[in-house]
């Protein structure tokens, strides 16, 4: 009971910081970093989204699906390859060539045979696995989660993804880890049962089936940005934040206008209220 109590006290800070945010209990507090889209008026940085997409394409997409996104989304307003000169994202040459690189399963309408054809902007990103069982079989029983809404599906969103991707560490001595698992202080979990060291100092974090996916120079950035793990993690986190909510920028811009309108409207109503009530004692 005491041991459990102390372990719980260890992440008391996390619990205090977010009254209802319990899912990350046991994980280290997310790393401090700044994104261009933080804050009420922050917007996505298109160059960062393009770098992030490249990392998704070359690293993540071999295991992680992105079922809810179509190639055309990349060329829509606010997207990584948006071009204001091109009205229809399906006509965007970048989007068309990205889509063409993928082979999409289809049915030949003449013969009914299962065929593969190059993708078009209207196609969804294909799933790297034929089905869930295939995905699990190739990943030591673990299922790589779909990344369509991953930034919204985790507390602290892009900040969590950044912390996790840069967070792979050598496990502390005393932590029992099976070959298919990897220690990460930012992955939610409870390591009490795997810990043979001082019970007062159970390490934060959990065991994740994914090995550290990023490495220095694993991806070559076309714009000359240094390809460090930090930069890669930040860029792909930004891309996934965009993928999770492509309309976030439109939302914030609409919100600014709505706020200005509501403030002026409230001011006018207050002035009317004072004027109408001026002769009534109340």
């Amino acid at each position, binding site marked *: 009971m*005491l041991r459990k*109590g*102390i372990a*719980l*006290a260890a992440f*008391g800070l996390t*619990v*205090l910081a977010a*009254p*209802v*945010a*319990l*899912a990350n*209990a046991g994980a280290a507090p997310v790393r401090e970093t700044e994104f261009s889209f933080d804050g*009420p008026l922050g917007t996505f940085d298109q160059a960062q989204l393009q770098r992030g997409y490249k990392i998704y394409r070359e690293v993540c997409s071999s295991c992680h699906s992105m*079922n*809810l996104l179509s190639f055309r*989304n990349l060329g829509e307003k606010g997207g990584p390859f948006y071009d204001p000169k091109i009205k229809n994202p399906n006509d965007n040459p970048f989007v068309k060539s990205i889509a063409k690189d993928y082979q999409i399963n289809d049915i030949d309408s003449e013969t009914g045979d299962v065929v593969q054809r190059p993708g078009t902007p209207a196609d969804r990103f294909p799933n790297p696995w034929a089905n869930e069982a295939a995905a699990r079989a190739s990943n030591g029983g673990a299922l790589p*989660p*779909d990344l*369509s*809404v991953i930034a*919204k*599906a*985790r*507390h602290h969103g892009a900040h969590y993804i950044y912390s996790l991707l840069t967070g792979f560490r050598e496990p502390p001595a005393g932590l029992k880890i099976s070959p298919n698992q990897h220690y990460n202080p930012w992955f*939610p979990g409870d390591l009490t049962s795997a810990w043979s060291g001082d019970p007062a100092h159970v390490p934060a974090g959990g065991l994740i089936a994914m090995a550290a996916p990023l490495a220095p120079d694993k991806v070559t950035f076309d714009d000359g940005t240094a390809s460090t793990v930090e930069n890669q993690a930040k860029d792909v986190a930004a891309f996934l934040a965009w993928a*999770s*909510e*492509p*309309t976030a920028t*439109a*939302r*914030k811009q*609409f*919100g*600014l206008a*709505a*706020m200005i309108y*509501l*403030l002026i*409207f*409230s001011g006018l*109503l*207050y002035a*009317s*209220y004072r*004027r*109408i*009530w*001026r*002769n*009534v*004692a*109340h």
Partner: protein
Amino acid sequence: MSGHSNYEPKSGFEKWLDVRLPIVRLAYDSIVDFPTPKNLNYWYTFGGILAVCLGIQLVTGIVLAMHYVPHVDYAFASVESIMRDVNYGWLIRYMHANGASMFFVAVYIHMFRGLYYGSYKAPREVLWILGCVIYLLMMATAFMGYVLPWGQMSFHGAVVITNLFGALPVVGQALTTWLWGGFAVDNPTLNRFFSLHYLLPFMIAGVVGLHIWALHVPGNNNPTGVNVKSKEDTVPFHPYYTVKDGFAISVFLILFATFVFFNPNALGHADNYIPANPLVTPAHIVPEWYFLPFYAILRAVPDKLMGVLLMFGAIATLFVLPWLDTSKVRSMRYRPTAKLYFMIFVLACLVLGYCGGQLPDNHVIPGLSTFKLIDADLNSFVWLSRIATLYYFSYFLILLPVLGLTETPLPQPESISEPVLSHPASMPAGATAAPEKKG
């Protein structure tokens, strides 16, 4: 809706209509000419705010239903498709999701206001009970609405809440199966929840009509709790309260917009963006914030059935409140002792809400585990919930009945105008209600 009418039909059409269907007269008597106490403060604007909330939920909800697919395989993706592919779908959906929270913010303030100013006392018992019915319908609607996106919290929340009915003796199991439409929460459950989620708001709208009718028969209560004595005490609803409510609604919409546009997911749970998976239970199943006080009461009781009964009892108590409070004085302005206990009651509700979001065995004060009593760790959220639950019920079942008999209230004013005229911020004596057109 009742009593004397000052409506005089002006045009020929209005005269023709008035002897056939006096609907213009009804509107005039209810929202233009309706005599309203002139001392209503901003706590009284939440009725109007709630009407706006209901309107927003109905309009956004009807549009969402045009795009939503109530099927376990498509529900999650259809909600995301609304966010991505429907024009302004993100706005409609975020307004609807945050609108539910805003609706509950407003309804809780509205209820606490009624509790503080004794708005449930004669002759407004029916008004209060209809309000409780609306609240109950709101909770059912909100719960079923939260299930529709079919995320992890949707699914497992639905499992937890529907399983509560299984605690009832004899009929429990059969009742739960009947509610589910099967032997587990599945597609039939989602389908019926969607159907009922669409139906209940219209029932709410109907009961709101009755609620307003029951308000307009005795008229508004007011912060003094003293009955309206003369025309001096009132002002016509329009323009005096249309403009005051309008201002309050606009300020409320600023709060609403802050969430919708700049923090749309702050009041939800991240796990609900993970598609429902019956085989993976989230680490912590937490209901939406507005259910947390009741969730804390449920978990405060070790026995499942008793917990369920106590949780429903917490709401049932509200229905009989008019007959539990024995005090003849309506407003707690003139009940200093009751006022103190009321403040503690508000605190107890907030504490219950906080406890509902915590793990029951967690320590309230981290690192301190000395409050051991026999086998009970008093420094835990489950014990804090128990204390707050005890106070919640004591307030209604012991404090309010006893206080009314024992306390000595402060002297009440003769009329609404009396304290108004002696108010330091008030206008010079003799100033009367003048139409806004002058000056």
